């Protein structure tokens, strides 16, 4: 799975995709939009605030070349405000983001870095070989013959190159997990270091060996061996910088989801903000329960009710009988201020019984859920008693109708389907599980000899996002919003946001304090005890 994150500074690529986004194409899978559209069916235009532009174009990053001031960056950002000339529905937004993924621009960047890496790798590997072969090609008659020690060095060069090849393959040639907004600083530094190093070796070789046509072949071979040794040491440096440095936990990050307040804490080492964001997202998919927008509708309706009851009429101002149901409608700022204050005061004085409703509603809902759950458990247990695993010997003895797990699941599913559907509807999870997925899960449980309770566990509580089918990985495109530059390291008290279409994750960092530990020795023979009882009994 490949998550991409975009940052609007680079969205001059998106200009191409925006222009080419296909209006008529409705062939995308609509199911995944259903859950979100259910809540927003009434609103057809969506406002997304673009992340602040200042830190992104103004700060110094390693990629100095990318600081080109795109003159029409305003027109080509992926942000859509409510006042644009065409208002887009939520489906269109998702379609645009899908197009961005397939767009040529971002792929180009990935392939560019890949080809650069491959070219550099080839250059680095062929350099020692070239060092060894060139004298034989250019001045073979002058060259001293290679003695025993020299030939031993050939073997050493060969094996060291092989080890280097395997090590580079292990460290660098892994499929990328994600596309990050900015370049990975350490990798860039290492690439520059390797290039400088190899260039300086070539320079020396060219001047001192090629020009003078040195005939001491053993010296040349030793030179090549020293190059390979140094490359191995650079690889060691790469391991330390890229892999080992962030292993020791240094910061404790608190990740909170903005819609329902789910909070988790993780320990991270010294990472840059973008790498920390990537690590957090990977933990997010495993740890956080899936985002269920249906559970939030109750609080939204309550909030709407709070505001709906009050209307402000201005009877003695410049705007006669101005009907406003919000403080923002008036032009005069002072008017708006006093209106909002009046609304707040009126709302505070109003005797609100919504807390009462909430309490009784919650109690009723709880009771309903428990009743449905009891019915569901009984139905599932009964359904599971209808099938039995057949042993090998029985198969030969009595020719009964045998079923494979899928058919067995289909056979017992109808008896529990109704109870399960009712339960899912009560807990507002029905859009997370399709009929097909439930039957698949049932077949899986039957195959693995699971009890009814094990089968039910995935429906009784909301699991992590990865548990559900692919259509629920709604957010594969995340935006990183941060004050500090995303290639700078984590620091104490830094806050950044990871935003996707439905919600955002707010991350705060705290440094793990320095722990001063001291020791105390307790002699094992010093553990002595006395009785402290003193009872008094009356006779």
């Amino acid at each position: 799975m490949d998550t991409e994150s975009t940052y609007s500074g680079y969205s001059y690529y998106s200009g191409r995709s925006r222009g080419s986004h296909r209006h008529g194409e409705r062939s995308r899978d609509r199911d995944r939009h259903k859950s979100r559209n259910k809540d927003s069916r009434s609103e057809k235009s969506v406002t997304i605030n673009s992340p602040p532009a200042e830190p992104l174009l103004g700060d110094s990053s390693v990629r100095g070349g990318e600081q080109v001031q795109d003159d029409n960056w305003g027109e080509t950002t992926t942000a859509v405000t409510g006042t644009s000339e065409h208002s887009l529905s939520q489906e269109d937004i998702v379609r645009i983001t899908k197009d961005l993924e397939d767009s040529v621009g971002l792929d180009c960047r990935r392939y560019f870095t890949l080809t650069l890496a491959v070219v550099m790798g080839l250059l680095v590997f062929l350099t020692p070989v070239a060092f060894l072969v060139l004298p034989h090609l250019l001045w073979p008659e002058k060259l001293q013959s290679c003695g025993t020690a020299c030939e031993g060095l050939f073997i050493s060069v060969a094996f060291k190159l092989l080890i280097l090849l395997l090590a580079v393959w292990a460290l660098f040639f892994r499929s990328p997990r994600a596309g990050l907004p900015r370049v990975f600083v350490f990798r860039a530094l290492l690439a520059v270091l390797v290039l400088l190093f190899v260039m300086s070796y070539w320079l020396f070789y060219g001047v001192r060996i090629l020009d003078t046509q040195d005939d001491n072949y053993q010296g040349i071979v030793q030179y090549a061996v020293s190059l390979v040794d140094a490359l191995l040491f650079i690889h060691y440096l790469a391991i330390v910088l890229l892999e080992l440095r962030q292993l020791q936990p240094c910061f404790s990050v608190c990740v909170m989801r903005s819609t329902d307040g789910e909070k988790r804490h993780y320990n991270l080492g010294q990472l840059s903000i973008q790498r920390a964001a990537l690590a957090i997202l990977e933990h997010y998919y495993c740890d956080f329960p899936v985002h269920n927008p249906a559970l939030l509708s109750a609080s939204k309706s309550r909030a709407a009710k709070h505001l709906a009851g009050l209307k402000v009429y201005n009877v003695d101002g410049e705007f006669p009988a101005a009907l406003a149901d919000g403080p923002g409608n008036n032009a005069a700022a002072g008017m708006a201020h006093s209106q909002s204050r009046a609304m707040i005061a009126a709302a505070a004085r109003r005797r609100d019984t919504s807390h009462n409703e909430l309490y009784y509603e919650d109690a009723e809902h709880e009771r309903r859920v428990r009743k449905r759950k009891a019915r569901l458990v009984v139905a599932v247990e009964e359904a599971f008693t209808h099938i039995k695993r057949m042993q090998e010997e029985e198969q030969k003895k009595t020719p009964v109708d045998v079923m494979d797990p899928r058919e067995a699941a289909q056979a017992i599913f109808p008896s529990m389907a109704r109870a399960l559907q009712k339960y899912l509807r009560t807990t507002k999870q029905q859009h997370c599980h399709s009929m097909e997925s439930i039957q698949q899960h049932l077949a899986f449980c039957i195959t693995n000899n699971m009890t009814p309770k094990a089968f039910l566990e995935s429906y009784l509580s909301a699991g992590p996002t990865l548990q559900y089918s692919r259509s629920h990985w709604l957010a594969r495109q995340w935006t990183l919003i941060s004050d500090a530059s995303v290639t700078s390291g984590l620091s104490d008290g830094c806050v950044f946001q990871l935003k996707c279409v439905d919600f955002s994750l707010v991350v705060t960092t705290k440094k793990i304090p320095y722990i001063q530990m001291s020791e105390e020795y307790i002699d094992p023979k010093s553990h002595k005890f006395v009785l402290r009882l003193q009872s008094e009994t009356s006779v």
Partner: protein
Amino acid sequence: MSNFIPGQPLVAVVQRIEIKKLRQGDNLILGFSIGGGIDQDPGQNPFSDDKADKGIYVTRITPGGPAETADLRMGDKIMQVNGYDMTMMTHDQARKRLTKKNEDVVRLLVTRKSLEEAVKNSMGGHQRQ
């Protein structure tokens, strides 16, 4: 009380006290409370001189009960009950000895500091052996 030397026979001046048990409903009560025992903490005993003494002591006397009429006093150490030695008893064993249902009368041997002093005074000029 005499000094308690573990392993040596204990010498004490004792008083014989006979208490008739009083029937109260289903129980036979004596009308006092005991404390102490070899499984208890002797340091918390307010009545003993030697804070290592783990004997059974009388900690409370119910006013008007059979123990009071029999002249048992608070702070007495019970040495014997009906012939059974009480100086090396756990608290529960002592309680059981005193509350046997088939005994109507308990004959106690108790000792107290005032007894020793009374004996010393009465011996007067005679030297102690």
